[in-house]
């Protein structure tokens, strides 16, 4: 079986540090035979949530944009990767718009009490948060993580199935290439996740 990987590159800067980190993970996954799809969020038409709460009754979003496609891909994927730089101590606005549009899954799960993925697929999906930050502060990722967890929880990916690779102190474009361990860490993560998914999907 082919592992289906859906990745969101949410940085407004193409081929910057967070996208390079993502590309390393994806290349390692492809080497392991996974099918990977990368969505460049800043170039996609994904508008912010309007807060209308209509999804609580309609079980879908009233807005029709690229999120229609993303919605179905989120349900289908075995692995979902969110890659974002840290801007002003949080996810960039583009990433936050994507996370907020997952409200439709939150309504489905917690209000309408409907399954997001079939029960047998629970524990068979992995979520990965990749992030880079220019600041060297240890706490620079802390405020982004609750929103990231929110995103993965509402699409039925548990804490135990989340992986994080966050690299601080990389500011100018390409700085991550000079980081002593980031590339090896990214490749090891890609291999580990595909190996893990093969195991749980075969079980």
């Amino acid at each position: 079986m082919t592992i289906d990987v859906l990745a969101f590159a949410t940085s407004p800067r193409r081929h910057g540090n967070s996208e390079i980190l993502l590309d390393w993970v994806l290349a390692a996954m492809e080497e392991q035979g996974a099918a990977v799809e990368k969505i460049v969020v800043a170039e996609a038409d994904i508008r912010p949530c309007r807060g209308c709460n209509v999804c609580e009754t309609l079980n879908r979003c009233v807005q029709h944009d690229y999120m229609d496609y993303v919605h179905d891909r989120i349900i289908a994927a075995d692995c979902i990767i969110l890659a974002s730089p840290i801007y002003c101590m949080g996810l960039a606005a583009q990433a936050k718009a994507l996370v907020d549009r997952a409200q439709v899954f939150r309504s489905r799960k917690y209000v309408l009490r409907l399954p997001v993925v079939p029960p047998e697929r629970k524990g068979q999906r992995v979520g990965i948060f990749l992030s880079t930050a220019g600041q060297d502060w240890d706490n620079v990722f802390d405020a982004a993580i609750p929103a990231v967890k929110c995103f993965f929880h509402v699409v039925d990916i548990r804490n135990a199935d989340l992986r994080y690779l966050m690299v601080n102190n990389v500011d100018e474009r390409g700085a991550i290439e000079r980081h002593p361990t980031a590339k090896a860490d990214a490749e090891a993560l890609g291999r580990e996740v595909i190996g893990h998914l093969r195991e749980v999907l075969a079980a």
Partner: protein
Amino acid sequence: MNDPVNVLGISGSPRRHGNTETLLDALLDGAREAGADVEKIVLRQLDYGSCRGCNACHRTGVCVIKDDLTVVFEKITAADVLAVASPIYSMGITAELKGLIDRAQYFWARKFILKNLYFTDEHIRRHKGIFISTAGLGWDNVFDSAFPALTAFFNTTGFEYWDNIIANDMDRYGGIAGHPTALAEAREKGRNVVDLLRKLQAEG
């Protein structure tokens, strides 16, 4: 005769006249009662792009994007009190407000890279920032991830982070009108911050 106290309210909620905007309105009403000049900006009504991460401002000190936020930042610079409001969506501020905050990068570039913008301690003491927020969930920690972005924003734009007006558990209260204290607290803090700035003006 003192200068008027300028209070700028910015609503980052996509929903008009919801819990967060109503709480912001209460603060602005209080400020108006205390004699301030008050203006409210609703981000949802504006047309603006998100920061492109191009870092051009690191060289030029200005943003390459010219849109509705250009004048908003002029108004922020002219305000004595900056009241920024956002509901909590997915454990953070809305994409609309984060869009505004990320665009303030050119202030940061001017302060820390170009070093042609400097706020004195006295300036910061006379400019007060207030964060207003509501959340559906009743968790105590539901606002925690919003604070660092607001801290960064107020620091960057030269405001002292004066106070929060936050109310969680909206789902249980049936909205802000059902909350026992939040609206009255907001109104009182609106009056208080204007009185405080007048006192600082009187000190000369």
